[in-house]
């Protein structure tokens, strides 16, 4: 266990370090003055000078890199070029919108996709199975930004059932939830299909295993056999899939946040890229990477919790 944790944490640190390195070296591979590139063409002389001093631009590159890492470790991700506010504070303001979007988007996909996959596997070739199959293929094929646009046009613009843009009044949970519905629907939809397919396939495999036959031969209730035995094993590959898919989910939030004008991390990155506000881009991408690494770590831990064989080989 100790060995495993050391290994995993080491690997995570390595991943994050590499991402910082890439972000950092981008600045230096693009021809021109790093300060101008970082702050963009519209930055003032004064800002450039301040930036050069702050980033220790007169120091060798590797020292600058170490300084950035050191600062990042203490939570200092630099200053926003325009407002001069700390990048960390800006990200913290926005991250909640993204987390809630991802959480609700993945949440409804999991709550719907896994039972659908289960039911389809328990009754293969039934109408439910067929419908699930068709829907899965359909939803997986459609990119989430198209879903976002269509959802916006149908439910917000045409039917006017739900608000089109924004994240709701600050402090009003109900209003914020209503604003979550459409974007969460959009980013979760293909995951419903994805999860249903995945769970169906692994359930079908597990239902053929000898130990399922044993459970039935001992007269256990079908519900217990399906959810307590088969799903418990079949869920394992799905957890890995969800963990890995989290990266894709974060990139689909960029579209959803732009289309629905939610002030989340994705929108922040998008705006910052457009404005060449490089400290923000650097900071936000770093935080997103950190999130991703955490989620993968969490999903692996969850698997270890479910599967004693994995737990002990750690």
């Amino acid at each position, binding site marked *: 266990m100790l060995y495993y944790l*050391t290994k995993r944490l080491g690997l995570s640190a390595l991943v994050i370090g590499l991402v910082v390195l890439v972000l950092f070296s981008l600045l230096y591979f693009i021809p021109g003055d790093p300060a101008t590139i970082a702050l963009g063409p519209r930055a003032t002389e004064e800002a450039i000078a301040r930036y050069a001093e702050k980033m220790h631009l007169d120091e060798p590159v590797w020292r600058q890199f170490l300084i950035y890492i050191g600062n990042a470790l203490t939570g200092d991700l630099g200053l926003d070029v325009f407002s001069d506010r700390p990048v960390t504070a800006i990200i913290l303001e926005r991250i909640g919108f993204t987390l809630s979007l991802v959480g609700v988007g993945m949440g409804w996909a999991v709550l719907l996709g896994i039972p659908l996959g289960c039911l389809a596997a328990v009754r293969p070739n039934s109408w439910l199975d067929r419908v699930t199959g068709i829907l899965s293929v359909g939803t997986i094929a459609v990119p989430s930004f198209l879903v976002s646009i269509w959802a916006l046009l149908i439910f917000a613009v045409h039917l006017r059932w739900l608000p089109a843009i924004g994240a709701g009044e600050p402090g009003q949970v109900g209003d914020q939830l209503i604003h979550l519905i459409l974007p969460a629907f959009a980013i979760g939809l293909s995951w419903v299909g994805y999860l249903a397919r995945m769970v169906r396939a692994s359930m079908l495999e597990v239902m053929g295993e000898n130990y399922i036959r044993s459970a039935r031969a*001992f007269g*256990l209730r079908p519900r217990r056999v399906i959810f307590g035995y088969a799903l418990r094993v079949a869920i394992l590959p799905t957890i890995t899939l969800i963990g890995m898919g989290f990266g894709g989910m974060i990139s689909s939030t960029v579209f959803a946040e732009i289309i629905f004008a939610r002030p989340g991390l994705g929108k922040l990155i998008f705006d910052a890229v457009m404005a060449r506000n490089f400290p923000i881009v650097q900071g936000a991408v770093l935080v997103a990477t950190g999130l991703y690494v955490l989620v993968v770590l969490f999903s692996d831990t969850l698997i270890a919790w479910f599967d004693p064989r994995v737990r002990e080989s750690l």
Partner: protein
Amino acid sequence: MPQDAAHAPETLLDVRNLSVDFRTPRGRVKALRDVSFPIRRNRIVGIVGESGSGKSTVLWALLGLLAKNADVMGGEVRFGDRDLLHASEAQLRATRGEEISVVFQDPMTSQIPVLTYGRQMLDILYRRPNVSATEKRHMAVEMLRKVGIPDPDRRIDQYPHHFSGGMRQRAGIAMALLTGPQLLLADEPTTALDVTMEAQIIHLLQDLQKELDATIVVVSHNLGLIAELCDDVVVMYAGEVIEAGDVREIFHNAQHPYTRALLECDPARINDVSRKLPVIPGDIPDLSKALSGCIYAPRCQRVLPVCRETLPPDVARGEMSLARCHLLDGPHRDSSWPPPLDVMTVGQGEGTAAKPARAQRDAPLLDISDLSVQFEVVGPIQARLKGLTQRHVDAVLDVSLSVAPGETVGLVGESGSGKTTLGRCVLNLLPSQAGHVRFEGEDIRNMPEGRFKPLRRDMAMMFQDPVGSLSPRKSVRALITEPFQIHGIAGVDLDAEAERLAEMVRLPKHFLSRYPHELSGGQARRVGVARALALNPKLIIADEPTAGLDVSVQGEILNLMADLQAEHGLGYLIITHNLPVVRHIADRLAIMYLGRIVEEGPTDEVFARPVHPYTRALVEGVPQPDPDRRRVHVSISGEVPSLLNRPKGCDFAGRCPVAQDRCRTEKPPHLTMTDGRRHACHFPLG
């Protein structure tokens, strides 16, 4: 029928005229046809038959758990006042686990890996709302104790992978008996286990049956197990019950030609040590084709013209005895049938019958000395973090063994004893750490592949799993001639070679265009032999050459191998855990335990007078296909220790019935006795 009424209360479950079809793409497979037999209360009933005879199908039909593509075509299964074949799913579910419970064939795959035994056993008791969880746990612990799990209070919270194969099967039996069922079904309960474990499980089942007054049905293809364990026996062939009766009647006075042939083919029964084993020619019939007359007629040694047209009568003898054959009743009755037990009714197949003259021992083909193979079990960093000092295990330790041309050496041991590792090392498929492996005098140990490659033509391997080791997309013709391509041998007529080899292993020519999945077990094995022979090797290493084959087919393969040896002077190293088989084919035996050879010598002497206590346990561990020769006690208990904690002294000390203090501190060296046999024991048996 007045008699029927007299024994009716004694019959716990009655299978009557059960017929089951499977729908398959090839058509309907008539897997069970008109199967009837009673299961009498407080008895152990054995269902015996070769692979595909429908044994498992009967069991699953009793539980209403047949595969989805199965159709019950008729019959009934009377259990008390119910007919289980026509019971509702809810009724069946109430019966399963409570009144009828099951022990499964393979404890490795039939227990869910992610739940503890405690959880699994609580689940089985879910129908007892009045019993508290603590009491249920207590019941489970007691049941585990009863089946011989040491320290059950602690072990109940462990997962299946914490248990060894034998322990798992004990736990499987505990789970099945937990609810106190009236009927226990056991499908091949020991097939996945080693000989010494099998003996222990047989005795456990016997003891539990007496103690709990249970009724047990055991399905097995192992005649020895049936003879040792059962009171009543049902013999099945190709989906029919062809004979049934009391165990003594079946084993001493079999009426049906098939039963007779089956008994004669069992190597454990044959006393005369000849290399040729009896065989039943032909294969089990294709059940998807139309069937008429006697199902056994195509293979029967006594077939009459009438047999092919008319279904033979069920001839009853006693309470539950019956046999289905024209010879026993009616116009074709033959009063000289069945002949006395010592008359053989089946032949030994074609080919030369001579046992080759014992080979000269002075010029060994293969000579292994002091060979050791280590495996790294943990990486260096992990060992540091976990505080382990020992990173390697000795899978093979100080092994010396030789094989002469024309000689068959049997390497015997239980699973994990290092047999296969040794074989792979000889073929240079694994690196070894010490010792020598000489082939025709040249040291080939750890030779670079480039130099070793030409030698591969002289040494061939026959793999354990014939179908799995054959590439499914290649025809038999391509498979047989593959060695020529692997070794880049040009200028041979591949078609001619394929035909030559097919003829050598007596595979009909039209099989050359078939694919592996279209072959029976025995035929796939023949392809394996043909591949091994393709390049005229001098030495063949055969890993479990007949594992998974039925006795009637096993003889064919072994006879074939013996003939080829006599013709070509091949040397065989046969790796197996099947003692009755090596007894017939091997000149010498080497017994392995935990990577070491504990005894080595001429086969007949090792069997007649084992020197090492472990050898004796193995020899006595084989159940005899004779109900009058049941063992009263199990010769050794416990199981093989893990390589990770190899004992300091004798590896066998923990299980040895004659161990003394010295055994626990000092590893016994290999000693050669005056008659040339070698052993590793401080206190050899006299």
